[in-house]
């Protein structure tokens, strides 16, 4: 973990509420090892009302360009301020934070399910699986076509299935309604997204006796295990979702069936 200034290389709106911000260390030092599921804490400058940093999942790491991608959803004042940043400006980050998705040791069928901005870490995870020689399949869900982000990026890494609630892209319904879940069986499932979605995914995984990890986004102050605010009630007691998580095996969580 370290605190570092990054230079913004680009900041591009992907739709009405999400921006893709690409950053590189300001002093060009090589990025350290980072793993899918980890996150950064972004300092929000120039805001009277925003005090704490904002945790943002690592969307992708481009080693060749020494660049990290952050997919930011504008949900409040803090994330709005972050998305106002322009190329050439500085973003101060604490990184890399948290644990990561477990990477399998043998070939198998791996399904990565993301909902909304929860698809962000799945791109980095898909890349890592590819690098290990494993194929990844992606199941992405959103309210409408415009909520499904980075499809072409995902398609470069594996098969992509989509669901939208209004049917404007892929199959109509929620991710857990998708036919791919009925017609196939998977060796492991990774998920990140709204809690009701992850609960439904966990239910599917448990019913089908498939291992599953979920990435949580509890409210946090520090991001590195000092404040004890982001606790998740687990079978091992109250754990910090910033250091013991954000990725948990669903067997450890108390809100899954």
């Amino acid at each position, binding site marked *: *973990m*370290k*605190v570092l200034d990054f230079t913004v290389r680009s900041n591009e709106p992907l739709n009405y509420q999400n921006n893709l911000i690409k950053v590189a260390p300001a002093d060009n030092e090589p990025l350290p090892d980072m793993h899918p599921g980890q996150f950064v804490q972004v*300092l929000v400058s120039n805001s*009277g*009302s*925003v*005090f*704490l*940093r904002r945790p943002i999942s690592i969307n992708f790491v481009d080693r060749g360009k020494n660049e990290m991608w952050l997919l930011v959803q504008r949900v409040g004042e803090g994330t709005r301020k972050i998305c106002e940043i322009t190329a050439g400006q500085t973003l101060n980050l*604490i990184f890399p934070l948290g644990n990561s998705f477990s990477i399998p040791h043998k070939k198998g069928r791996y399904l990565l399910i993301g909902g909304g901005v929860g698809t962000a870490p799945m791109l980095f995870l898909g890349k890592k699986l590819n690098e290990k020689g494993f194929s990844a399949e992606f199941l992405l869900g959103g309210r409408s076509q415009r909520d499904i982000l980075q499809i072409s990026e995902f398609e470069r890494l594996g098969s992509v299935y989509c669901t939208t609630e209004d049917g404007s892209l892929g199959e109509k319904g929620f991710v857990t309604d998708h036919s791919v879940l009925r017609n196939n069986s998977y060796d492991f499932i990774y998920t990140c997204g709204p809690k009701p979605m992850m609960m439904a995914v966990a239910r599917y995984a448990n019913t089908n006796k498939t291992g599953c990890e979920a990435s949580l986004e*509890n*409210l*946090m*102050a*520090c*991001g*590195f*295990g*000092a*404040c*004890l*605010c*982001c*606790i*998740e*009630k687990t079978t091992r*007691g*109250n754990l910090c979702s910033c250091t013991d998580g954000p990725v948990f095996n669903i067997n450890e969580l108390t809100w899954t069936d």
Partner: protein
Amino acid sequence: MDRLKVNIGKLELQNPVTTASGTFGYGVEYADFIDLNRLGAIFVKGTTLEPRQGNDYPRMAETPSGMLNSVGLQNKGVDYFIERIYPGIREYNTRIIVNVSGSTLEDYVKCSERLEDLDKVPAIELNISCPNIKEGGMAFGTTCQSAANVTKAVRNVYRKTLIVKLSPNVTDIAAIAKAVEDEGADSVSLVNTFLGMAIDAETRKPRLSTVTGGLSGPCIKPIALRMVWQVYNAVRIPIIGIGGISSAADAIEFMLAGSTAVQIGTYNFIDPAISMKVIDGITDYLSRHKLKSVSEIIGKLEV
């Protein structure tokens, strides 16, 4: 760097910059960011006789220039601290001070007794001001009588440096400070968090599971400064100032108001290296003002 040395009773600190309990874990959480050995002291996480799970999620709400928390003293208990955590932190070349909390007078006494034997813990900070536990905690710190009682009971069993952490949720903090001084406290630290609350207007629900919680951060600084000034004018024992410190200038203000040392709390979350910047900034201030020792600014507010 002798000119940064200060004394809390008989306890010498290498500089006046320390980190506040509950914001700094056991120090190790910050080892990647700073050289812990440079700190004046580390006030480690609130410790109780028995393990505590703490309060339910959500425990945190951001507020203008600050935050509310209702962690509720989540910790694994004093025995776990002694057996599992202390061996890992005892080699740090700074002062390790344990924050002691409890629900009953007996809890405080037993917990303090167990800590007395730790050779690398030269002091404890008696937390009679936690607003986030149902029984005990702040209740001990809100009347002169109960604050005096718990200080007296612990003083009887604890011979090392005894610091009492005061609650700001009282009508006259100087009277409480005086009461604990009279019972043998070596120092008072102030302030703990202010009782507050936050509401989500859309859902009509409180933002904290406990409805109310403790407010901290820069928003409380002016009130904390005022309280330090009032206490400084009422007691003779050294004061450790706490409340929204986020720069060297803030720390110096607290010292001018009467603090011998300061604790940096919530701002560690925003800048984990802030404590080092405050130490450097104080050194710079001494040079610019041609002062030989940081003690020369304690209580030197010119009114």
